[in-house]
């Protein structure tokens, strides 16, 4: 279809019913064949060179103790693109995001089954160094958590712990990251002040700057604009669009318009399950699943 310029390299929902696939054969090249089969070929065969695969989860289940938060998630996240995760509150978006840089490991009593692959390597393999992984896969948390240090030191922290000592490099990077996160003009005269004195929205942008400063390959963003005014939100969205030239971005958002504006791909989660995933345009304008449609149009629940 002309609507979809390039065939997707992502997985579809776990088990889309074959009948539905058959019912809309013209929906996309993806649904022409069985989705799982189409994805089995891998990114390069299905999508050409345009969207190689960065992250893939295969049959992933996730448990907090005995409570299962994620069920059989098969998802492929393409490189240098924005993938949005949407879904009702408590459906497991943050849990999924944290699984991608193993931040869930910190939570006592959690476990998972299935594979999480980064550049085709299992990130839960025993030979993987979690510290190195988290340097490659940066994260902006849902709740902004500045360190009780100065604004400058907050942004410089990632570089300092990585062993970077070059002062001019650190200074330049701090300025660049603060500019990218649309915070520079507000804080450039008070870099030595406590980051705790910033407003909620400023703190959120500071956390984005902090994550950028370590120069990760993948950026996981959990509702990075939830406390921002429209102008700052627009700046952050511009930033994300700019960043996707070089970074792979996974963003959780409750804002449908935002997902539509900035993401190429959207995954819809509901109650721990991946209901549907597809090109953002397709998912928003021609959702395959009834649940997706209900959620997007606000008729959910």
């Amino acid at each position, binding site marked *: 279809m002309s609507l979809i310029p390039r065939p997707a390299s992502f997985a579809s929902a776990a088990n889309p019913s074959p009948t539905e696939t058959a019912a809309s054969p013209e929906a996309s090249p993806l649904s022409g064949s069985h989705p799982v089969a189409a994805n089995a070929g891998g990114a390069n065969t299905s999508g050409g060179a345009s969207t190689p695969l960065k992250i893939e989860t295969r049959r992933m289940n996730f448990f907090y103790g005995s409570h299962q938060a994620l069920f059989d998630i098969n998802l492929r996240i393409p490189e240098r693109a924005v993938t949005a995760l949407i879904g009702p509150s408590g459906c497991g978006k943050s849990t999924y995001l944290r699984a991608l840089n193993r931040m869930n490991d910190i939570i006592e009593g959690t476990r998972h089954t299935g594979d999480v692959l980064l550049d085709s390597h299992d990130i839960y393999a025993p030979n993987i160094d979690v*510290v190195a992984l988290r340097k490659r896969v940066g994260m902006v948390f849902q709740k902004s*958590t500045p360190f009780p*240090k100065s604004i400058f030191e907050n942004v410089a922290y990632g570089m300092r*712990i990585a062993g970077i000592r070059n002062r001019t490099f650190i200074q330049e990077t701090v300025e660049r990251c603060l500019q990218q996160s649309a915070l520079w003009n507000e804080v450039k005269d008070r870099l030595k002040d*406590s980051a705790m004195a910033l407003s909620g929205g400023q703190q959120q942008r500071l956390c984005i700057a902090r994550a950028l400063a370590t120069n990760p390959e993948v950026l996981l963003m959990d509702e990075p604009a939830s406390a921002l005014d429209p102008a700052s939100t627009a700046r952050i969205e511009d930033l994300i669009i700019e960043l996707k030239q070089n970074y792979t971005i996974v963003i959780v958002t409750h804002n449908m318009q935002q997902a539509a504006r900035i993401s190429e791909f959207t995954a819809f989660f509901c109650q721990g399950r991946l209901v549907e995933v597809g090109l953002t345009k397709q998912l928003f304008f021609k959702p395959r699943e009834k649940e997706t449609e209900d959620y997007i149009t606000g008729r959910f629940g």
Partner: protein
Amino acid sequence: MSETPTPRRPLSPLPEKPPIPTTSPTTFVGGGLVEESFDLALARRHRNGRIFEWVCWLATWGSVLILGVLIAAMAWQAFGWLTPKFLVSMPKRNPAEAGILPGIVGTFWLILLTAILSVPLGVGAAIYLEEYAKPTLLTRFIQLNIANLAGVPSIVYGILGFTAFVRMFGLARSEYLISFGIGTFQLTLPFGRTVISGALTLALLSLPVVIIASQEALRSVPPSLRHASLALGATKWQTIRYQIIPSALPGMMTGVILAMSRAIGETAPLVAIGAATYITFTPGRIGSLSEVVTRPDKLAQVPFDSFTTIPMQIYGWINEAKPDFQHVAAAAILVLLAILLISNGLAIYIRQHFQKKIRW
């Protein structure tokens, strides 16, 4: 009101609020009971708040008053006895000539050694238990025992110290088990009634308090802080070093200050290990401050010398027959209180310095 500005408004209780006109009294129905009107309940809620404030006020100033009376009584007794000479003299049989110097110096060395021994151990144990140890049955058991140890009477520690450090379980048949010297430095085992025995005993006594307070301080560091640090690619050690310890440090120091203040005043365990009450030299026989520089070898002997402390001297003087020694004891109590005040003030000042470094 006229245009003339009122120069000063008289301090008065809150002006009577005009009653809110209630055409129909607000009533809430809950659980089948008709409750009082909102206004009535509000008045009572405010009154409860004021009562609570009063109780707290009373608690604070009540304790200040008791302390004040105590200090005043001591000052009355010590008047004329607390002289500069008292501070720099050795104890004498004659109360008029008695001094507290060995006690002051002994307390200083004892607490210094106690802090050196107990703070790293206590903080280290707290960090291990909070940050590294898996919550197994064993760690829970250890945790429970630490809490219990904090409540053990100090005399019990004294008996333990006597057995373990002073006598070393009676291993020595003759006077010394081991005794060797390098130059003027002499190490003898068992330690006997020396500064090091006292410091080890007090360190054991302070350890549970230091551990528990440090754990509490570590626990109060928001978990989001460590998550944020780890997510930026910090190692566990870096996270502890650069985020958790700086945030927990003021709380840890509070615990250390409290533990050391308590150790300064401890008497019972020192009585149990047999520390001297009457001694006419300072540990290491250091006669003056300048000797610390000119005879540094004497410093090495400090831990292995006999000692007394201010509380021990007070204890000794109170038991003296001559009534004038009661005045000497009162003077010594004032000195002890002053030292406590100064060292606490200093410690709190240092803590504030660290607190300022964290930019909450």
